[in-house]
């Protein structure tokens, strides 16, 4: 059986029917990782022995007649900014390169309760800052569809590992598009839930008011299941929402007749590739055919979204990343003779250039005399953006846009122009600012053989609408091509 090309729910069926053991699954995936990851570099930490012994443990659990949940024995890769007790958690940074977390993130606890099979820690842009996964101190991740191209970022490892069949699913994090953009560039499904739907406890903070953990999967059904598994209130996260988690799986294959779809013209930006535009338009035609009402709308404040994001995210980051000082954990410059020298050298050597750039931007925006003009102003404009979305959702069930204005770009293409790099998140960033849920799923493939993604955005806590529409799109696109590695 070709286990590595099955989805999580298919594997779950075989585990339940006892046709395959978890160790069988582990062996096939380990073999796949060993054969392709040298090229992809999706993993920072993968320990085959730990992987196999965990698989055997789960087999023993199953043999004892215990309940088999959706993710019992299912291999899941974990982005390396999610804390895993006793396992190295690096954030792809030199400053945490030898850090062993002393506790499990809440999402890990939730998946452990289902006896999931953790595969390893997936590569990413350092501290989740980047859109190409070139900012990793463990090396760039390559796009499985074309190894000269970036997989997107910052969750490049989680996206590429699913695209390259190294795992059926993975967890990433999304602050300004870090799940959706790489999902789009790698041709997989990736979802950012409502802010507060999934606990951030144990997610190494980049920008606290924007960060959210979410799933990468091969199909919408797995996405709904994985979202369901990790969602819910957590007393360790004051910003987590205390409402019941809907049965997300139940919204698939719904009738979308009469659902209202808005197309924000501000997200059909001028930088958009023609092929990307065509694919999104095809999706819209299909939705209309299925009975949805599609209309163009305007959210004027989105014009400022990129600026707002590049004030708020670095500001929060500058504070969140002050704790990396060489005192309690992580890298330290050992030659420094005084404390201040140690701070400066540790941080100058421990952080990469993009992380330092953002710390500098954030420090500037919060500093005396500039707070009102930058940080506070950005928070006000953020309110305008939220209001624009509220307005839109008073009429529309979902909004649709390209996920990324372009398909994957070449490695090295934008490294020296941060501002150009920042523009690749232009369609995803507004969603984080408003805290609303959105998914990216495959919408087509370019002439050069690179995937194109479409983004479906819902109102706060309306993951149901997002999944309904996404499921309808998926059934129409019926896209089964896989990258050849």
């Amino acid at each position, binding site marked *: 059986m070709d286990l590595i090309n099955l989805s999580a729910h298919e594997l779950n069926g075989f585990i339940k029917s006892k046709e395959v053991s978890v160790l069988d699954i582990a062996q096939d995936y380990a073999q796949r990782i060993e054969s392709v990851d040298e090229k992809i570099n999706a993993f920072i930490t993968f320990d085959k022995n730990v992987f196999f012994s965990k698989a055997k443990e789960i087999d023993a659990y199953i043999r004892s007649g215990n309940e088999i949940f959706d993710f019992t024995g299912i291999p899941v890769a974990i982005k390396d900014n999610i804390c895993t007790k006793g396992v190295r958690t690096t954030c792809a940074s030199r400053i945490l390169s030898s850090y062993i977390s002393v506790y499990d993130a809440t999402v890990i606890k939730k998946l452990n309760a289902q006896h999931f099979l953790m595969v390893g820690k997936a590569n990413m842009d350092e501290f989740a800052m980047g859109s190409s996964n070139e900012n990793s101190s463990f090396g760039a991740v390559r796009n499985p569809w074309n190894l000269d191209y970036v997989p997107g970022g910052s969750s490049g490892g989680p996206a590429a590992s699913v695209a390259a069949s190294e795992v059926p699913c993975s967890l990433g994090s999304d602050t300004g598009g870090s799940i959706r953009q790489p999902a789009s560039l790698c041709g997989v499904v990736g979802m950012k839930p409502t802010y507060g739907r999934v606990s951030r406890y144990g997610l190494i903070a980049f920008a606290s008011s924007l960060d959210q953990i979410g799933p990468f999967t091969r199909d919408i059904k797995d996405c709904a299941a994985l979202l369901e598994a990790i969602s819910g209130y957590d007393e360790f996260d004051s910003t987590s929402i205390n409402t019941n988690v809907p049965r997300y799986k139940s919204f698939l294959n719904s009738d979308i007749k009469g659902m209202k779809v808005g197309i924000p013209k501000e997200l059909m930006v001028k930088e958009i590739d023609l092929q990307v535009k065509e694919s999104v338009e095809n999706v819209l035609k299909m939705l209309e055919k299925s009975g949805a009402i599609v209309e163009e709308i305007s959210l004027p404040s989105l014009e400022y979204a990129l600026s707002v994001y590049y004030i708020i995210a670095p500001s929060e980051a*500058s504070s969140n990343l*002050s*704790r990396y000082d060489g005192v*309690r954990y992580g890298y330290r410059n050992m030659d420094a003779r005084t404390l201040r020298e140690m701070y400066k050298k540790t941080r100058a050597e421990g952080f990469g250039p993009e992380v330092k750039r953002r710390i500098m931007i954030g420090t500037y925006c919060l500093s005396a005399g500039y707070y009102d003009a930058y940080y506070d102003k950005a928070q006000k404009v953020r309110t305008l953006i939220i209001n624009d979305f509220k307005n839109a959702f008073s009429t529309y069930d979902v909004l649709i846009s390209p996920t990324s204005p372009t398909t994957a770009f070449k490695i090295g293409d934008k490294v020296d122009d941060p501002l150009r790099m920042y523009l690749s998140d232009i369609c995803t960033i507004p969603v984080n600012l408003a805290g609303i849920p959105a998914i990216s799923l495959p919408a087509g493939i370019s002439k050069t053989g690179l995937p194109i993604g479409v983004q479906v955005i819902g109102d706060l806590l309306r993951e149901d609408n997002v999944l309904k529409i996404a499921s309808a799109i998926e059934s129409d696109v019926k896209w089964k091509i896989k990258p050849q590695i």
Partner: protein
Amino acid sequence: MENKTADLNNKYETVIGLETHVELSTETKMFCGCKLSFGEKPNTYTCPVCLGHPGSLPVVNKKAIESAVKIALALNCSISEHSIFHRKNYFYPDMPKNYQISQYDLPVGVGGYIDINMGNYVRKVKITRVHVEEDTGKLIHIGSTGRISEADYSIVDFNRAGTPLIEIVTDPDIKSPEEAKQYMITLRNTLLMLNVSDCSMEEGSIRSDANVSVKLTTTDKLGTRTEIKNLNSFKFLQKGLEYEVERQIDVLESGREVLQQTRHYDNKTQTTKVLRQKEEAHDYRYFPDPDLVPMKILPDWINEIKSALPELPGAREKRYKNSLGLSDYDSAFMANDFEISSYFEETLKHHNNAKSVCNWIMGDFSAFINKNQVTLKESKISPENLADLVKMIDRQEINSKIAKSVFEEMYDSGESPQEIILKKGLKQISDTGELEAIINEVILKNPDAVSQYKSGKVKAIGFLVGRIMAKTQGKANPQIVNEIIVKKLS
């Protein structure tokens, strides 16, 4: 010399504002479930949150907020309906995250006051704000002297990191070092009555920094102020401020300018020294902490807390005066010190004669305690035993002389007055039969005194009573003795 000082004191006015940090005595820390500890091995009460580990998040301790509201109410503040936490960013090794979660422009309480009784006048000190924050860890400086400047290196203990702190800031309303000291005493007693902190000076649970400036009496323009740190006892507070006021006056008198500085009080030399200049002042980059949500402290909640507030010193003083009939001085003495007041209240529960109890506490008891340099609480005399002693005196079961010796014994042994009286056979003889026999004997043996009395020297009776008291080792009830003698000799 004296005249010159007096002249200068008239020429200048002192302006002081205090910023006090109080550690709450909750069970757990401000943002995590670690227990509060004191004097434990370093880093034994820590977790990912209070060590600032990657990915950890704070969650607010509800009891700490309630304590903050209590304090704010006791200091007559208004409670902010909408209150949030900010991050105060600066790097220091005792700060696990290199930012402190604190409050900035939306603190729990604002705009209050507290009355400071200075004996011959009352000073109203306005409270600018009462806010909640987290404490830092502790640094231990390793080197020959243990001082930071001479240390080879330092080690950090995070047991204290994250302890809930309340910061109480006054307006610049305090006019002298003595007032500053009295403010601290009053504040501490108020906090002790609220039962929100142990307010231990030695353990640093209450510590103050002061902003001090002097200005010419003839102008309204405030002088340049300095901030004084390390004023961690009532004595240091007064001494440090006295030194600093004098220093500033000297600077001005010599025609120079006071510089805006942060200074450190050094108890060894009883002087203040420069810590840092204004130019080095921090840029804290305050912004609302995105990991926490706002607090809505609504009337219902405030009323619930208000209804559970204990009686505070001011109200207590009034009650002592009006309901218990104590003098102004006695009322203030009994109400304004938490320990004395608690002792007094407890004693009254067992014997309801406020005036007698008050006299004993202020008289003999205070004298003993001052002599031995202990506190009421540390003494072996329980309020119940003191109540019993005073009760016996009031019922004339013992006379004041015996009472004194019983008290001494109680003070030494901690035994009850009943036990001591029984053991030593000190019970008063009020039995007239028994007394009459002794009186007859004394009359017979002292004919001179008897005849003096009969010839009109009334004083002679004192001599006879004295003989009787001596014979009974003071146990005779003097009043009854008097009555019998008078009857017998008339």
